[in-house]
């Protein structure tokens, strides 16, 4: 099987009312997780869910790298150890980070902000802007 990037259709954070675009799960990235980080590989399912059903989208996630995006969501379940799937805790939000080219590079839980349980803690100081909110 040749190296294959996996593509996920997402809201375009640069044009939230426009056509959807593709986020990239790069082959070298998911293969690294598959080989050496089984629980992170399993939670790529969770990352895909959050990208497809985000509740908040933020722009400008890094000081030293241009662009980048953070999609957050509340999955019902997630893996905490290999093959151990449990309910996702209420006090956490699942954050999925994409670089400026929409490549996935990080997916993890973070504590919720006090003012908005669907945002990561200290989101006002960490990100450039909140660019989209779920209305449902």
């Amino acid at each position: 099987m040749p190296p294959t990037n996996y593509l996920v259709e997402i809201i375009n954070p640069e044009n939230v009312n426009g056509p959807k675009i593709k986020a990239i799960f790069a082959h070298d990235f998911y293969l690294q997780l598959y080989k050496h980080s089984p629980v992170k590989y399993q939670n790529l399912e969770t990352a895909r869910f959050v990208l497809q059903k985000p509740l908040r989208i933020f722009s400008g996630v890094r000081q030293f790298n241009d662009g980048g995006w953070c999609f957050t969501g509340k999955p019902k379940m997630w893996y905490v150890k290999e093959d151990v799937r449990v309910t996702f805790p209420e006090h956490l939000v699942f954050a999925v980070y994409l670089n400026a080219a929409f490549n996935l590079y990080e997916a993890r839980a973070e504590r919720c902000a006090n003012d908005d349980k669907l945002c990561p803690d200290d989101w006002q100081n960490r990100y450039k802007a909140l660019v989209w909110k779920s209305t449902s």
Partner: protein
Amino acid sequence: MEKHFLSNFVSGKSQFVAKPWYNPHGDCIIYRTVDEEVIAERIDEILTIYHSAISEKPIGFQIKGVGAIVRRLGLAGVEVECEERDKEIMHVSLIAILLAAYESGPKTIGRRMAYTGAFEFSPRQTSLQISPVTF
């Protein structure tokens, strides 16, 4: 158990390895000591501490903006060896990167404690292979 959506694209053995690695897509170094999901605690623009989602104990860290650190220090400041200069691959010291990251921010007690934890986690004499062309 449901089939993983990427299972048709991967093969070979899957086994956790507690070894830091450079993620070129995020320009970051990632290190976890156990294969447990994490709750991230952002310390500053560079360091994030990973806590176990099971025990909440610290189990690793992420160092962001590796390219910026290397650019600021120059290769001589972090490079361990460069075996394949033509292929633009070099090996950098994890400890040198961590030290540079600490020195780049305010010397607060919170940062000092977090970086101390990261230093204590770090395997000694570890070099990481990175590609400067990604910066």
